[in-house]
């Protein structure tokens, strides 16, 4: 399946963080590559939504909505700075 990009989860990110996050800059915890959240490879048909590092494919973001709650896993980043 072709990857989309972080624009595709922009709405979910606003709901989870309370503000625009696609222009936030993250550092990949595996390869150290830096990218905006908009510039990640995004898969919507995983269980939940998954964003991966374009350079090394490391899983950076997992978001799952369960019974009205959004569970967000960001442990793939070593740093994440809102714009």
């Amino acid at each position, binding site marked *: *399946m*072709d*990857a*989309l*990009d*972080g*624009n*595709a989860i*922009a*709405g979910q990110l*606003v*709901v989870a963080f*309370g503000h*625009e996050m*696609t*222009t936030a800059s993250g550092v990949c915890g595996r390869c150290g590559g830096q990218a*905006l959240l*908009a*510039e990640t490879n995004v898969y*919507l*048909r995983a269980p939940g939504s998954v964003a991966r590092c374009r350079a090394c494919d490391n899983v950076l973001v997992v978001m799952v909505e369960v019974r009205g709650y959004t569970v967000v896993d960001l442990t793939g980043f070593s740093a994440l700075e809102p*714009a």
Partner: protein
Amino acid sequence: MERAALRGRLSWQLATVVELVEQTRRTKSIVLDPPDWTGHRAGQHVDVRLTADDGYQAQRSYSIASAPEDGHLELTVERLDDGEVSPYLVDDLRSGDQLELRGPIGGYFVWERSLGGPLLLIGGGSGIVPLRAMLRHHLATASDVPVRMLYSARSLDEVIYREELMRAGAEHAVDVRFTLTRKQPAGWDGYARRIDRDLIGEVAWPAGDRPLVYICGPTAFVETAAEALVGLGHEPGRVRTERFGPT
């Protein structure tokens, strides 16, 4: 009270369909009147949610086709034959119906007059939609940055906003170029092939002019165009991309 407390949050709202305009055989523009709308920036999108009688919900993102100055919210949706949401929006939705949406969303794939240019817009298929919002914003604000647009479609029949884009090319200082990849009318003098590095190189300003580039289309289209530009020496940070897929 409740609305004030929720200000700034991204909430679902019911927008009334004011008008439907058939753009091509497979695409329709939906003009909406959301009750709680604070305006948008060119390039942003909304999330649309459909709920079936049994409670099943399906949600998709659609780019905003109108400029912030247009005074209404317009989405343009392409019908995907095996889609879960777009066949309803294109075939079944009627004026006066209500559509559940939230937005505006996104801060990355956005162009505002203050960002300057030169502005290079590259669209594939319905990827033209957010670029059309940027072009309208450019015209509405009398921005004087040079604008070039490259629009790839399968045939002239599938060119969305065809007359408007051709008019922008003829009446304003906007350089609009089309490439028709499958079928060309007799006497066609535009491009007639899929985008590749040569075509991008021919249309784009030299990297030294530092254009601000927006590319929207299917994933493979976007990646071909973005890789070509970076290969030609354009700064990756000035090449902004938005991919869509048959999700």
